[in-house]
């Protein structure tokens, strides 16, 4: 038999592995360059001689940026917790269930992932222009003194709008993650727990949830990171008012619009730092929790 006719030749195996490696390495290098370019820009294009003139220090010296950092940390953490609070019961409820319309339901759950961010913001804005959000709260809550106060006034273009906009998108990612997590858990474990004396809730809380812990941590991290990067829905639904609804993503936008590219890059670097920090802390903490 000729060498050409041999099945599974060594050369084709090697070239296949090289192709896989090349794609992986190119993508990794691209991501690292993407992140590193911000740092490179600041080091090469900035005119600063001492650390105090460093654009990051300068950015941190501004009160509005410090407030933006604080608001970002608070809202991202709240949104991540809200997302998890929605995703855990939904992921568990939908686990392994097949019923007519399941594909449609999955498609509906993915809407916040596929919709353009500005459309999500606009949709939220429109939704809150309808009752019950426009009804006077005094009608339902006797302790509200102001007869004109509505939920719309308390939420739209206020801090709660930031959290709602972030949660709307982040929860879709958390649900997708946790649906997969719960589906991977052996259903027998839960059944055994039921035979050992557990109620449905006990089997869920004592057996299923601890087994889903790595997925919950991943979903929380993903939600937090998504919330930090959210911009479009925030701009439309919460606005970009300094010292009020400004978060780090809107800071980058605001600094860019006033021509302060250095400031925008500095804030971008802070966002990268925060994202990496949250990623590392949750991964390490997750591993520690699991090994205990």
């Amino acid at each position, binding site marked *: 038999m000729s060498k050409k006719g041999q099945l599974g030749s060594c050369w084709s195996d090697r070239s296949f592995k090289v192709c896989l490696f090349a794609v992986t390495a190119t993508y990794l290098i691209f991501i690292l360059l993407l992140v590193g370019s911000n740092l490179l820009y600041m080091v090469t294009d900035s005119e600063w001689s001492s650390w105090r003139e460093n654009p990051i220090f300068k950015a941190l010296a501004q009160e509005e940026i410090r407030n933006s950092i604080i608001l970002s940390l608070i809202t991202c953490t709240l949104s991540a917790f809200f997302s998890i609070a929605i995703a855990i019961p939904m992921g568990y409820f939908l686990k392994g269930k097949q019923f007519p319309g399941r594909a449609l339901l999955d498609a509906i759950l993915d809407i916040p992932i596929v919709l353009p961010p500005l459309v999500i913001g606009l949709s939220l804005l429109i939704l809150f222009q309808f009752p019950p959000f426009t009804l006077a709260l005094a009608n339902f809550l006797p302790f509200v003194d102001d007869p004109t106060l509505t939920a719309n006034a308390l939420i739209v273009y206020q801090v709660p709008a930031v959290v709602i906009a972030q949660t709307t998108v982040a929860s879709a990612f958390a649900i997708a993650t946790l649906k997969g997590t719960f589906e991977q858990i*052996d259903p*027998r*474990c839960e*059944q*055994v*727990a*039921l*035979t*050992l*004396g*557990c*109620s449905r809730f*006990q089997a869920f809380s*004592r*057996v299923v949830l*601890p*087994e889903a*812990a790595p997925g919950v941590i991943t979903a929380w991290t993903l939600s937090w990171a998504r919330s930090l990067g959210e911009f479009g829905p925030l701009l439309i639904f919460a606005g970009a008012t300094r010292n009020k609804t400004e978060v780090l993503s809107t800071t980058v936008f605001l600094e860019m619009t006033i021509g302060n590219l250095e400031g925008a890059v500095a804030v971008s670097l802070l966002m990268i730092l925060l994202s990496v920090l949250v990623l590392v802390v949750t991964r390490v903490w997750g591993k520690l929790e*699991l090994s205990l």
Partner: protein
Amino acid sequence: MIEFSNISLDQGNFSLHQVSFKIEKGQYAVLMGETGCGKTSLLEVLAGLKEVTSGTILLNGSDMTHARPAARGLGYVPQEGSLFASMTVSDNMAFALDVRKWKKEDQKARVQELSSMLGIEHLLNRSILGLSGGERQRVALGRALAFRPEVLLLDEPLSAVDENTRQSLCQLLKSIQKETGVTVLHVTHSPWEAEELGDVILRLHAGKIDKQEKVKGN
């Protein structure tokens, strides 16, 4: 002790029709049948994990047909053990006791007693990850026996272990049953296991229990 009267179950791809059998208190019953004939489903029906279409299940004379799994008080060991990966061996074994709010010292004493009977004292503080097939089955047995159930349901407990482990686990199952007097329903493909262990052999074929016979010498 266990009485199935005209139990029917429709699962779409297979069904059980009017299955009836009886297992006396303290007997070791072995349920055999071809792959996919519904042996595991029968066990799940008894454990309360699947709802029957019709028929009655009596446990100790009480109608348990629609009772929750927790109310039936049966120890259940699935095929692969299905141990709780987030817990240690000791926590797995004490699980049913913790759910029943036993005192910690009583839980510890019961786990010690069982682990000594099962020969797994040295594993108590270990995570279940990394346990061998035989060790996993011993832990699963300990977990199911911890709350002293009157009935033990075993779903092919020896199918995923090597020959030596199979023989030693077989001896262990025999001695446990003798020591505790627990009524056992053991699902298997293996005629050897049936001969070794069974007081009664039930054969499930085409959705019905065909034969119920006593084996001599056990």
